[in-house]
Protein backbone atom coordinates (compact mmCIF):
# COMPACT_ATOMS: atom_id res chain seq x y z
CA UNK A 1 0.00 0.00 0.00
CA UNK A 2 1.27 3.44 -0.94
CA UNK A 3 1.47 5.59 2.21
CA UNK A 4 1.27 9.36 2.71
CA UNK A 5 3.90 10.15 5.31
CA UNK A 6 4.56 13.37 7.25
CA UNK A 7 8.12 13.63 8.57
CA UNK A 8 8.71 16.26 11.26
CA UNK A 9 12.35 17.17 11.85
CA UNK A 10 14.24 20.17 13.10
CA UNK A 11 17.23 19.28 10.92
CA UNK A 12 17.16 18.70 7.18
CA UNK A 13 19.82 19.63 4.63
CA UNK A 14 20.99 22.31 4.02
CA UNK A 15 20.30 22.90 7.74
CA UNK A 16 22.77 20.40 9.15
CA UNK A 17 23.42 20.44 12.87
CA UNK A 18 24.37 16.82 13.35
CA UNK A 19 24.18 13.44 11.72
CA UNK A 20 20.40 13.40 11.99
CA UNK A 21 19.97 15.73 8.99
CA UNK A 22 21.58 13.19 6.64
CA UNK A 23 19.64 10.31 8.17
CA UNK A 24 16.28 12.02 7.72
CA UNK A 25 17.16 13.10 4.18
CA UNK A 26 18.08 9.54 3.20
CA UNK A 27 14.91 8.24 4.86
CA UNK A 28 12.70 10.75 3.02
CA UNK A 29 14.37 10.03 -0.33
CA UNK A 30 14.15 6.26 0.02
CA UNK A 31 10.56 6.32 1.29
CA UNK A 32 9.47 8.62 -1.54
CA UNK A 33 10.35 6.00 -4.15
CA UNK A 34 7.14 4.15 -3.34
CA UNK A 35 5.29 6.55 -1.01
CA UNK A 36 4.25 10.17 -0.82
CA UNK A 37 6.48 12.00 1.64
CA UNK A 38 6.06 15.50 3.08
CA UNK A 39 8.98 16.74 5.17
CA UNK A 40 8.10 19.61 7.51
CA UNK A 41 11.18 21.29 8.91
CA UNK A 42 12.47 24.72 9.94
CA UNK A 43 14.97 27.28 8.74
CA UNK A 44 15.94 30.90 9.42
CA UNK A 45 14.54 32.39 6.24
CA UNK A 46 11.07 33.11 4.85
CA UNK A 47 8.73 30.17 4.34
CA UNK A 48 9.84 27.90 1.50
CA UNK A 49 8.08 25.04 -0.24
CA UNK A 50 10.24 22.79 -2.37
CA UNK A 51 8.84 20.11 -4.63
CA UNK A 52 11.75 17.70 -5.06
CA UNK A 53 9.68 15.20 -7.03
CA UNK A 54 6.05 14.20 -7.45
CA UNK A 55 6.30 12.19 -4.27
CA UNK A 56 8.69 14.29 -2.14
CA UNK A 57 7.93 17.81 -0.94
CA UNK A 58 9.86 19.81 1.66
CA UNK A 59 8.23 22.59 3.70
CA UNK A 60 10.72 24.88 5.46
CA UNK A 61 9.14 27.01 8.15
CA UNK A 62 10.56 30.06 9.97
CA UNK A 63 9.99 30.64 13.68
CA UNK A 64 7.05 33.03 14.16
CA UNK A 65 8.66 34.50 17.28
CA UNK A 66 12.08 36.18 17.41
CA UNK A 67 14.29 36.27 19.40
CA UNK A 68 14.17 33.38 21.87
CA UNK A 69 15.70 32.93 25.30
CA UNK A 70 16.32 29.19 25.00
CA UNK A 71 15.80 26.12 22.83
CA UNK A 72 12.54 25.14 24.55
CA UNK A 73 10.73 28.43 23.87
CA UNK A 74 12.22 28.29 20.36
CA UNK A 75 10.88 24.78 19.67
CA UNK A 76 7.47 25.39 21.20
CA UNK A 77 6.52 28.52 19.27
CA UNK A 78 7.83 26.84 16.12
CA UNK A 79 5.62 23.86 16.95
CA UNK A 80 2.45 25.94 16.46
CA UNK A 81 3.76 26.94 13.03
CA UNK A 82 4.52 23.29 12.18
CA UNK A 83 0.93 22.49 13.17
CA UNK A 84 -0.29 25.23 10.82
CA UNK A 85 1.67 23.81 7.88
CA UNK A 86 0.60 20.21 8.41
CA UNK A 87 -3.03 21.27 8.95
CA UNK A 88 -2.92 23.35 5.74
CA UNK A 89 -1.56 20.40 3.73
CA UNK A 90 -4.19 18.19 5.32
CA UNK A 91 -7.17 20.47 4.66
CA UNK A 92 -6.17 21.96 1.32
CA UNK A 93 -4.27 19.15 -0.39
CA UNK A 94 -4.00 15.60 0.78
CA UNK A 95 -6.86 15.38 3.30
CA UNK A 96 -4.96 12.33 4.32
CA UNK A 97 -1.83 11.41 6.20
CA UNK A 98 -1.33 7.75 7.01
CA UNK A 99 1.46 8.31 9.48
CA UNK A 100 3.58 10.96 11.16
CA UNK A 101 7.25 10.17 11.80
CA UNK A 102 8.60 12.74 14.25
CA UNK A 103 12.32 12.93 14.92
CA UNK A 104 13.45 13.98 18.40
CA UNK A 105 11.65 16.07 21.04
CA UNK A 106 11.37 19.46 19.30
CA UNK A 107 8.01 18.87 17.58
CA UNK A 108 6.52 16.01 19.64
CA UNK A 109 3.63 18.23 20.69
CA UNK A 110 2.88 18.96 17.03
CA UNK A 111 2.69 15.21 16.38
CA UNK A 112 0.61 14.68 19.53
CA UNK A 113 -1.95 17.34 18.61
CA UNK A 114 -2.12 16.09 15.00
CA UNK A 115 -2.74 12.58 16.26
CA UNK A 116 -5.47 13.77 18.60
CA UNK A 117 -7.08 16.14 16.11
CA UNK A 118 -7.01 13.99 12.96
CA UNK A 119 -6.42 10.51 14.33
CA UNK A 120 -3.12 10.18 12.44
CA UNK A 121 -0.92 7.57 14.12
CA UNK A 122 2.47 8.76 15.22
CA UNK A 123 5.89 7.13 15.29
CA UNK A 124 8.67 8.84 17.26
CA UNK A 125 12.28 8.33 16.26
CA UNK A 126 14.78 9.08 19.01
CA UNK A 127 18.37 9.78 17.98
CA UNK A 128 19.60 10.48 21.51
CA UNK A 129 18.23 11.46 24.92
CA UNK A 130 18.59 14.71 26.84
CA UNK A 131 19.56 12.93 30.05
CA UNK A 132 22.57 11.43 28.23
CA UNK A 133 23.41 14.50 26.16
CA UNK A 134 23.24 17.15 28.86
CA UNK A 135 26.15 17.94 31.14
CA UNK A 136 23.62 18.75 33.88
CA UNK A 137 20.45 16.68 33.34
CA UNK A 138 18.84 18.12 36.48
CA UNK A 139 19.07 21.73 35.24
CA UNK A 140 15.61 23.23 34.72
CA UNK A 141 15.99 23.51 30.94
CA UNK A 142 17.04 19.86 30.66
CA UNK A 143 14.06 18.72 32.73
CA UNK A 144 11.76 20.65 30.37
CA UNK A 145 13.32 18.82 27.40
CA UNK A 146 13.04 15.51 29.21
CA UNK A 147 9.38 16.38 29.90
CA UNK A 148 8.78 16.91 26.19
CA UNK A 149 10.54 13.61 25.37
CA UNK A 150 8.22 12.00 27.89
CA UNK A 151 5.12 13.47 26.19
CA UNK A 152 6.38 11.94 22.92
CA UNK A 153 7.24 8.60 24.53
CA UNK A 154 3.72 8.31 25.95
CA UNK A 155 1.68 9.78 23.09
CA UNK A 156 3.47 8.01 20.24
CA UNK A 157 2.27 4.66 18.99
CA UNK A 158 5.75 3.29 18.47
CA UNK A 159 9.30 4.46 19.12
CA UNK A 160 12.21 3.78 16.76
CA UNK A 161 15.85 3.92 17.84
CA UNK A 162 18.99 3.52 15.77
CA UNK A 163 20.99 1.74 18.43
CA UNK A 164 20.40 -1.08 20.89
CA UNK A 165 21.83 1.06 23.70
CA UNK A 166 19.40 3.88 23.02
CA UNK A 167 16.50 1.43 23.00
CA UNK A 168 17.30 0.34 26.55
CA UNK A 169 17.94 3.94 27.62
CA UNK A 170 14.54 5.03 26.30
CA UNK A 171 12.91 2.14 28.15
CA UNK A 172 14.55 2.99 31.45
CA UNK A 173 14.56 6.80 31.30
CA UNK A 174 10.98 7.11 30.06
CA UNK A 175 9.58 3.91 31.55
CA UNK A 176 8.07 2.52 28.38
CA UNK A 177 7.65 -1.22 27.78
CA UNK A 178 10.32 -2.88 25.60
CA UNK A 179 7.63 -3.92 23.08
CA UNK A 180 6.94 -0.25 22.29
CA UNK A 181 10.52 0.48 21.22
CA UNK A 182 11.94 -0.95 18.01
CA UNK A 183 15.64 -0.91 17.30
CA UNK A 184 16.28 -0.68 13.57
CA UNK A 185 19.95 -1.13 12.69
CA UNK A 186 21.57 0.27 9.58
CA UNK A 187 21.39 -2.64 7.19
CA UNK A 188 19.94 -3.57 3.84
CA UNK A 189 16.59 -4.25 5.49
CA UNK A 190 16.53 -0.84 7.23
CA UNK A 191 13.92 0.75 4.96
CA UNK A 192 11.73 -2.36 4.97
CA UNK A 193 11.81 -2.51 8.75
CA UNK A 194 10.89 1.18 9.03
CA UNK A 195 7.95 0.72 6.65
CA UNK A 196 6.97 -2.41 8.52
CA UNK A 197 6.85 -0.38 11.74
CA UNK A 198 4.64 2.24 10.06
CA UNK A 199 2.30 -0.44 8.73
CA UNK A 200 2.04 -2.19 12.10
CA UNK A 201 1.04 1.07 13.75
CA UNK A 202 -1.49 1.86 11.01
CA UNK A 203 -2.98 -1.65 11.30
CA UNK A 204 -3.46 -1.17 15.04
CA UNK A 205 -5.49 2.02 14.50
Amino acid at each position, binding site marked *: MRLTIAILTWEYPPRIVGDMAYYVEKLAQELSKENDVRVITCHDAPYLHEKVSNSLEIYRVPNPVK*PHVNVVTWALSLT*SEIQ*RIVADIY*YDKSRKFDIIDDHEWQFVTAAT*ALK*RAFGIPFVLTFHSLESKRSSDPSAPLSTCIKG*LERVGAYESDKIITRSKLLKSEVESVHQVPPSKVRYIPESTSWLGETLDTYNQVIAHQ
Partner: protein
Amino acid sequence: MFSWEFPPRIIGGIAPHVYELSRALARKGVLVFVVTCDFPGAPDYEVIDGVRVYRVDSYRFPTPDFATWTSMMNVNMQIKATEILANVRDKIHILHAHDWLVANAAIGLKHLFRLPLLATIHSTEYGRRKGIHDDYQRMIASTEAWLVKEAWRIICCSKYMIQEVNKALHGPEDKMDIIPNGINTRPFQTTYDKDAFRTRFVRDSKKIVLYVGRLVHEKGVSILVESIPKVLQKVNAEFIIVGEGYMKDELTQRVNQMGISNKVQMPGFLDTETVRLLFRSVDVCVIPSLYEPFGIVALEAMAAKTAIVTTGTGGLGEILQHNKTAVFASPTAGSLAAAICRVLKDESYADSLRKLAYERVISIFRWDAIAASTLRVYKRIIKEYGGGSWKIQPIKSSSDNHA
Protein backbone atom coordinates in the same frame (compact mmCIF):
# COMPACT_ATOMS: atom_id res chain seq x y z
CA MET B 1 -11.82 30.40 25.91
CA PHE B 2 -8.20 30.17 26.99
CA SER B 3 -6.85 31.88 30.09
CA TRP B 4 -3.84 31.16 32.28
CA GLU B 5 -5.83 32.18 35.36
CA PHE B 6 -9.39 31.56 36.47
CA PRO B 7 -10.81 31.57 40.01
CA PRO B 8 -9.78 30.27 42.46
CA ARG B 9 -6.42 30.81 40.71
CA ILE B 10 -6.24 34.62 40.74
CA ILE B 11 -2.96 36.31 39.84
CA GLY B 12 -4.02 39.49 38.10
CA GLY B 13 -6.97 41.02 36.33
CA ILE B 14 -7.53 38.30 33.72
CA ALA B 15 -9.06 35.80 36.18
CA PRO B 16 -11.96 38.01 37.32
CA HIS B 17 -12.42 39.21 33.73
CA VAL B 18 -12.72 35.71 32.25
CA TYR B 19 -14.85 34.53 35.19
CA GLU B 20 -17.42 37.33 34.79
CA LEU B 21 -17.35 37.38 30.98
CA SER B 22 -17.73 33.61 30.55
CA ARG B 23 -20.65 33.47 33.00
CA ALA B 24 -22.35 36.45 31.38
CA LEU B 25 -21.96 34.81 27.94
CA ALA B 26 -23.42 31.57 29.31
CA ARG B 27 -26.43 33.55 30.60
CA LYS B 28 -26.97 34.65 27.00
CA GLY B 29 -27.11 31.05 25.85
CA VAL B 30 -23.51 30.79 24.59
CA LEU B 31 -21.85 27.42 25.20
CA VAL B 32 -18.55 28.35 26.84
CA PHE B 33 -15.63 26.03 27.49
CA VAL B 34 -12.82 27.56 29.56
CA VAL B 35 -9.42 25.88 29.48
CA THR B 36 -7.19 27.16 32.26
CA CYS B 37 -4.44 26.15 34.71
CA ASP B 38 -4.95 23.95 37.75
CA PHE B 39 -5.08 25.16 41.33
CA PRO B 40 -4.67 23.19 44.56
CA GLY B 41 -8.08 21.90 45.64
CA ALA B 42 -9.91 23.02 42.50
CA PRO B 43 -11.42 20.22 40.37
CA ASP B 44 -10.01 19.28 36.95
CA TYR B 45 -13.48 19.79 35.51
CA GLU B 46 -16.53 21.61 36.78
CA VAL B 47 -19.53 23.54 35.49
CA ILE B 48 -19.83 27.05 36.95
CA ASP B 49 -23.13 28.77 36.11
CA GLY B 50 -23.23 26.94 32.80
CA VAL B 51 -19.52 27.49 31.96
CA ARG B 52 -17.54 24.28 31.44
CA VAL B 53 -14.21 24.80 33.14
CA TYR B 54 -11.25 22.49 32.43
CA ARG B 55 -8.15 22.88 34.58
CA VAL B 56 -4.96 21.42 33.13
CA ASP B 57 -1.69 20.45 34.76
CA SER B 58 0.14 23.78 34.70
CA TYR B 59 3.59 22.12 34.67
CA ARG B 60 5.05 22.23 38.14
CA PHE B 61 8.64 21.17 37.46
CA PRO B 62 11.40 23.77 37.59
CA THR B 63 11.85 26.00 34.54
CA PRO B 64 14.60 28.54 33.79
CA ASP B 65 12.17 31.48 33.70
CA PHE B 66 8.52 32.50 33.47
CA ALA B 67 8.41 32.49 29.67
CA THR B 68 9.73 28.91 29.50
CA TRP B 69 7.14 27.87 32.09
CA THR B 70 4.49 29.51 29.90
CA SER B 71 5.66 27.46 26.90
CA MET B 72 5.52 24.20 28.89
CA MET B 73 2.10 25.09 30.36
CA ASN B 74 0.85 25.73 26.81
CA VAL B 75 1.87 22.19 25.82
CA ASN B 76 -0.43 20.74 28.46
CA MET B 77 -3.17 23.24 27.71
CA GLN B 78 -3.08 22.38 24.01
CA ILE B 79 -3.09 18.62 24.54
CA LYS B 80 -6.18 18.89 26.75
CA ALA B 81 -7.93 21.34 24.41
CA THR B 82 -7.23 19.09 21.41
CA GLU B 83 -9.01 16.28 23.19
CA ILE B 84 -12.01 18.53 23.97
CA LEU B 85 -12.17 19.99 20.46
CA ALA B 86 -11.86 16.62 18.74
CA ASN B 87 -15.09 15.64 20.53
CA VAL B 88 -17.10 18.85 20.15
CA ARG B 89 -15.64 20.45 16.99
CA ASP B 90 -19.11 20.98 15.49
CA LYS B 91 -20.33 22.91 18.52
CA ILE B 92 -17.41 25.33 18.63
CA HIS B 93 -17.38 28.46 16.46
CA ILE B 94 -14.69 30.65 18.00
CA LEU B 95 -11.44 30.25 19.94
CA HIS B 96 -10.97 33.18 22.34
CA ALA B 97 -7.47 33.73 23.79
CA HIS B 98 -6.57 36.12 26.61
CA ASP B 99 -3.09 37.60 26.25
CA TRP B 100 0.20 36.11 25.00
CA LEU B 101 0.26 33.60 27.87
CA VAL B 102 -1.93 31.22 25.84
CA ALA B 103 -0.71 32.17 22.33
CA ASN B 104 1.20 28.96 21.50
CA ALA B 105 -1.72 26.68 22.37
CA ALA B 106 -4.45 28.81 20.82
CA ILE B 107 -2.65 29.53 17.54
CA GLY B 108 -1.87 25.85 16.96
CA LEU B 109 -5.48 24.91 17.71
CA LYS B 110 -6.77 27.57 15.33
CA HIS B 111 -4.98 25.84 12.47
CA LEU B 112 -5.54 22.25 13.58
CA PHE B 113 -9.30 22.77 13.74
CA ARG B 114 -9.58 25.67 11.28
CA LEU B 115 -11.48 27.80 13.75
CA PRO B 116 -11.27 31.59 13.86
CA LEU B 117 -9.24 32.99 16.75
CA LEU B 118 -10.20 36.08 18.72
CA ALA B 119 -7.68 37.64 21.10
CA THR B 120 -8.27 39.97 23.99
CA ILE B 121 -5.11 41.97 24.66
CA HIS B 122 -5.29 43.09 28.29
CA SER B 123 -1.90 44.76 28.29
CA THR B 124 1.34 44.72 26.31
CA GLU B 125 4.91 44.01 27.34
CA TYR B 126 5.79 47.43 25.93
CA GLY B 127 3.28 49.13 28.21
CA ARG B 128 4.06 47.01 31.27
CA ARG B 129 7.82 47.60 31.00
CA LYS B 130 7.74 51.13 29.57
CA GLY B 131 9.49 50.01 26.42
CA ILE B 132 11.35 46.87 25.40
CA HIS B 133 14.79 46.66 26.99
CA ASP B 134 16.16 43.11 26.51
CA ASP B 135 15.72 39.89 24.53
CA TYR B 136 13.43 38.33 27.11
CA GLN B 137 10.99 41.23 26.80
CA ARG B 138 11.51 41.27 23.03
CA MET B 139 10.48 37.62 22.85
CA ILE B 140 7.27 38.32 24.77
CA ALA B 141 6.50 41.35 22.60
CA SER B 142 7.15 39.21 19.52
CA THR B 143 4.74 36.56 20.84
CA GLU B 144 2.13 39.27 21.39
CA ALA B 145 2.64 40.53 17.84
CA TRP B 146 2.26 36.96 16.53
CA LEU B 147 -1.03 36.58 18.41
CA VAL B 148 -2.25 39.92 17.06
CA LYS B 149 -1.33 38.78 13.53
CA GLU B 150 -3.01 35.38 13.87
CA ALA B 151 -6.19 36.74 15.48
CA TRP B 152 -9.22 37.38 13.29
CA ARG B 153 -10.11 40.31 15.51
CA ILE B 154 -8.63 41.89 18.63
CA ILE B 155 -10.53 43.16 21.66
CA CYS B 156 -8.98 45.92 23.78
CA CYS B 157 -10.50 47.55 26.85
CA SER B 158 -9.98 51.16 25.75
CA LYS B 159 -9.07 53.43 22.86
CA TYR B 160 -5.81 53.99 24.71
CA MET B 161 -4.98 50.25 24.56
CA ILE B 162 -5.89 50.12 20.87
CA GLN B 163 -3.32 52.83 20.24
CA GLU B 164 -0.76 50.88 22.27
CA VAL B 165 -1.41 47.63 20.36
CA ASN B 166 -1.28 49.60 17.14
CA LYS B 167 1.99 51.27 18.02
CA ALA B 168 3.83 48.48 19.83
CA LEU B 169 2.49 45.38 18.02
CA HIS B 170 1.44 46.77 14.64
CA GLY B 171 -2.17 45.67 15.10
CA PRO B 172 -4.25 47.39 12.44
CA GLU B 173 -6.94 49.60 13.98
CA ASP B 174 -9.64 48.21 11.70
CA LYS B 175 -9.35 44.74 13.17
CA MET B 176 -9.67 45.91 16.77
CA ASP B 177 -12.77 46.48 18.85
CA ILE B 178 -13.09 48.40 22.10
CA ILE B 179 -14.97 46.50 24.75
CA PRO B 180 -14.37 47.87 28.24
CA ASN B 181 -13.87 45.83 31.35
CA GLY B 182 -17.04 45.25 33.31
CA ILE B 183 -18.02 45.25 36.93
CA ASN B 184 -20.38 43.21 39.04
CA THR B 185 -22.24 45.83 41.12
CA ARG B 186 -24.03 43.37 43.40
CA PRO B 187 -21.21 43.05 46.00
CA PHE B 188 -21.51 46.83 46.45
CA GLN B 189 -25.15 46.55 47.52
CA THR B 190 -24.89 44.59 50.76
CA THR B 191 -26.43 46.14 53.87
CA TYR B 192 -24.04 47.53 56.47
CA ASP B 193 -23.85 50.22 59.15
CA LYS B 194 -22.14 53.08 57.38
CA ASP B 195 -21.58 55.27 60.46
CA ALA B 196 -20.16 52.38 62.46
CA PHE B 197 -17.89 51.46 59.55
CA ARG B 198 -16.64 55.06 59.21
CA THR B 199 -15.67 55.16 62.87
CA ARG B 200 -13.30 52.26 62.20
CA PHE B 201 -11.22 54.80 60.28
CA VAL B 202 -12.34 58.29 61.36
CA ARG B 203 -13.67 59.27 64.79
CA ASP B 204 -15.67 62.45 64.12
CA SER B 205 -17.76 63.69 61.24
CA LYS B 206 -14.80 64.81 59.15
CA LYS B 207 -14.87 64.28 55.39
CA ILE B 208 -12.97 61.24 54.09
CA VAL B 209 -10.87 61.21 50.91
CA LEU B 210 -9.92 57.78 49.53
CA TYR B 211 -7.15 56.51 47.24
CA VAL B 212 -7.01 52.84 46.22
CA GLY B 213 -4.17 51.54 44.10
CA ARG B 214 -0.54 50.56 43.98
CA LEU B 215 1.81 53.11 45.54
CA VAL B 216 3.86 53.63 42.39
CA HIS B 217 4.83 56.60 40.29
CA GLU B 218 2.44 56.03 37.38
CA LYS B 219 -0.59 56.04 39.68
CA GLY B 220 0.11 59.68 40.60
CA VAL B 221 -0.24 59.04 44.33
CA SER B 222 2.59 61.45 45.18
CA ILE B 223 0.65 64.32 43.54
CA LEU B 224 -2.28 63.44 45.78
CA VAL B 225 -0.03 63.55 48.86
CA GLU B 226 1.29 66.97 47.80
CA SER B 227 -2.29 68.24 47.45
CA ILE B 228 -3.29 67.26 50.99
CA PRO B 229 -2.08 70.43 52.83
CA LYS B 230 -3.87 72.56 50.23
CA VAL B 231 -7.14 70.68 50.84
CA LEU B 232 -6.70 70.92 54.61
CA GLN B 233 -6.48 74.72 54.39
CA LYS B 234 -10.12 74.73 53.29
CA VAL B 235 -11.80 71.55 54.53
CA ASN B 236 -11.52 69.39 57.64
CA ALA B 237 -10.81 66.07 55.99
CA GLU B 238 -8.91 62.86 56.50
CA PHE B 239 -7.11 60.85 53.81
CA ILE B 240 -6.99 57.07 53.50
CA ILE B 241 -4.40 55.76 51.06
CA VAL B 242 -4.93 52.01 50.46
CA GLY B 243 -2.36 49.81 48.72
CA GLU B 244 1.28 48.86 48.69
CA GLY B 245 4.18 49.75 46.45
CA TYR B 246 7.79 50.81 46.27
CA MET B 247 6.88 54.44 47.02
CA LYS B 248 5.35 53.69 50.42
CA ASP B 249 8.37 54.74 52.52
CA GLU B 250 8.92 57.85 50.48
CA LEU B 251 5.26 58.84 50.80
CA THR B 252 5.21 58.19 54.57
CA GLN B 253 8.30 60.34 54.96
CA ARG B 254 6.77 63.17 52.94
CA VAL B 255 3.56 63.02 55.01
CA ASN B 256 5.61 63.34 58.22
CA GLN B 257 7.70 66.13 56.74
CA MET B 258 4.58 68.13 55.88
CA GLY B 259 3.22 67.61 59.40
CA ILE B 260 -0.01 65.98 58.27
CA SER B 261 0.52 62.45 59.59
CA ASN B 262 -2.53 62.80 61.86
CA LYS B 263 -4.64 63.40 58.75
CA VAL B 264 -3.32 60.57 56.58
CA GLN B 265 -3.67 56.82 57.04
CA MET B 266 -1.75 54.32 54.95
CA PRO B 267 -3.09 50.90 55.99
CA GLY B 268 -1.40 48.93 53.15
CA PHE B 269 -3.40 46.12 51.52
CA LEU B 270 -6.96 45.66 52.75
CA ASP B 271 -9.29 42.76 51.97
CA THR B 272 -11.73 43.15 49.06
CA GLU B 273 -14.82 43.52 51.24
CA THR B 274 -13.27 46.28 53.39
CA VAL B 275 -12.19 48.14 50.27
CA ARG B 276 -15.72 47.90 48.83
CA LEU B 277 -17.21 49.29 52.06
CA LEU B 278 -14.60 52.05 52.11
CA PHE B 279 -15.61 53.10 48.59
CA ARG B 280 -19.21 53.27 49.79
CA SER B 281 -18.45 55.17 53.00
CA VAL B 282 -16.09 57.93 51.89
CA ASP B 283 -16.92 61.37 50.48
CA VAL B 284 -14.62 61.37 47.49
CA CYS B 285 -12.37 58.92 45.70
CA VAL B 286 -9.27 60.30 43.98
CA ILE B 287 -7.77 58.57 40.92
CA PRO B 288 -4.72 60.69 40.03
CA SER B 289 -3.09 58.24 37.52
CA LEU B 290 -0.39 59.36 35.11
CA TYR B 291 -0.59 56.05 33.12
CA GLU B 292 -3.76 53.97 32.97
CA PRO B 293 -4.64 51.53 30.15
CA PHE B 294 -8.13 51.13 31.57
CA GLY B 295 -8.81 51.97 35.24
CA ILE B 296 -10.94 49.31 36.96
CA VAL B 297 -10.73 51.37 40.17
CA ALA B 298 -13.04 53.92 38.50
CA LEU B 299 -15.68 51.23 37.92
CA GLU B 300 -15.45 50.21 41.57
CA ALA B 301 -15.91 53.79 42.73
CA MET B 302 -18.85 54.24 40.34
CA ALA B 303 -20.49 51.00 41.50
CA ALA B 304 -20.08 52.17 45.10
CA LYS B 305 -21.70 55.53 44.27
CA THR B 306 -18.62 57.49 45.31
CA ALA B 307 -17.88 60.93 43.89
CA ILE B 308 -14.68 60.80 41.80
CA VAL B 309 -11.84 63.23 41.22
CA THR B 310 -9.42 62.11 38.51
CA THR B 311 -6.73 63.19 36.08
CA GLY B 312 -8.70 61.43 33.34
CA THR B 313 -5.52 59.82 31.97
CA GLY B 314 -5.69 57.01 29.35
CA GLY B 315 -8.74 54.78 29.81
CA LEU B 316 -10.04 56.94 32.68
CA GLY B 317 -10.91 59.67 30.19
CA GLU B 318 -13.04 57.15 28.32
CA ILE B 319 -14.82 55.74 31.38
CA LEU B 320 -15.55 59.12 33.00
CA GLN B 321 -16.66 62.52 31.72
CA HIS B 322 -15.72 65.82 33.32
CA ASN B 323 -18.47 67.60 35.27
CA LYS B 324 -20.89 64.74 34.69
CA THR B 325 -19.56 61.56 36.24
CA ALA B 326 -16.35 62.94 37.78
CA VAL B 327 -14.30 66.07 38.25
CA PHE B 328 -11.20 66.14 36.07
CA ALA B 329 -8.08 67.87 37.31
CA SER B 330 -4.62 68.45 35.90
CA PRO B 331 -1.90 66.26 37.41
CA THR B 332 -0.73 69.00 39.78
CA ALA B 333 -1.25 69.34 43.54
CA GLY B 334 -3.08 72.65 43.15
CA SER B 335 -5.53 71.47 40.53
CA LEU B 336 -6.20 68.22 42.37
CA ALA B 337 -6.78 70.07 45.67
CA ALA B 338 -9.23 72.48 44.04
CA ALA B 339 -11.22 69.60 42.53
CA ILE B 340 -11.30 67.68 45.82
CA CYS B 341 -12.46 70.78 47.72
CA ARG B 342 -15.17 71.45 45.17
CA VAL B 343 -16.65 67.98 45.69
CA LEU B 344 -16.30 68.10 49.48
CA LYS B 345 -17.88 71.55 49.83
CA ASP B 346 -20.81 71.21 47.44
CA GLU B 347 -22.90 68.23 48.47
CA SER B 348 -25.56 68.60 45.83
CA TYR B 349 -22.86 68.70 43.14
CA ALA B 350 -21.26 65.58 44.64
CA ASP B 351 -24.65 63.85 44.69
CA SER B 352 -25.17 64.61 41.03
CA LEU B 353 -21.74 63.16 40.18
CA ARG B 354 -22.50 60.00 42.15
CA LYS B 355 -25.90 59.56 40.54
CA LEU B 356 -24.72 60.03 36.96
CA ALA B 357 -21.65 57.83 37.52
CA TYR B 358 -23.78 55.03 38.93
CA GLU B 359 -26.27 55.28 36.06
CA ARG B 360 -23.36 55.08 33.61
CA VAL B 361 -21.73 52.09 35.27
CA ILE B 362 -24.94 50.05 35.27
CA SER B 363 -25.86 50.94 31.70
CA ILE B 364 -22.43 50.52 30.05
CA PHE B 365 -20.17 48.50 32.34
CA ARG B 366 -22.46 45.70 33.51
CA TRP B 367 -21.05 42.32 32.49
CA ASP B 368 -24.28 41.58 30.62
CA ALA B 369 -23.62 44.61 28.44
CA ILE B 370 -19.96 43.60 27.99
CA ALA B 371 -21.04 40.06 27.05
CA ALA B 372 -23.54 41.46 24.53
CA SER B 373 -20.75 43.49 22.88
CA THR B 374 -18.47 40.44 22.88
CA LEU B 375 -21.22 38.36 21.32
CA ARG B 376 -21.55 40.94 18.53
CA VAL B 377 -17.84 40.49 17.78
CA TYR B 378 -18.28 36.69 17.81
CA LYS B 379 -21.18 36.96 15.35
CA ARG B 380 -19.24 39.26 13.06
CA ILE B 381 -16.32 36.81 12.97
CA ILE B 382 -18.61 33.83 12.38
CA LYS B 383 -20.23 35.67 9.47
CA GLU B 384 -16.89 36.67 7.93
CA TYR B 385 -15.51 33.16 8.45
CA GLY B 386 -18.60 31.63 6.81
CA GLY B 387 -18.20 33.89 3.78
CA GLY B 388 -14.47 33.33 3.43
CA SER B 389 -12.41 30.55 1.92
CA TRP B 390 -10.37 29.67 5.02
CA LYS B 391 -12.51 26.91 6.46
CA ILE B 392 -12.91 23.17 6.14
CA GLN B 393 -13.98 22.75 2.53
CA PRO B 394 -15.82 19.63 1.49
CA ILE B 395 -13.59 17.07 -0.19
CA LYS B 396 -14.00 17.48 -3.94
CA SER B 397 -13.03 14.23 -5.53
CA SER B 398 -11.50 11.75 -3.21
CA SER B 399 -10.24 8.36 -4.13
CA ASP B 400 -9.04 7.50 -0.64
CA ASN B 401 -11.22 5.86 1.94
CA HIS B 402 -10.99 8.69 4.44
CA ALA B 403 -14.29 9.09 6.29
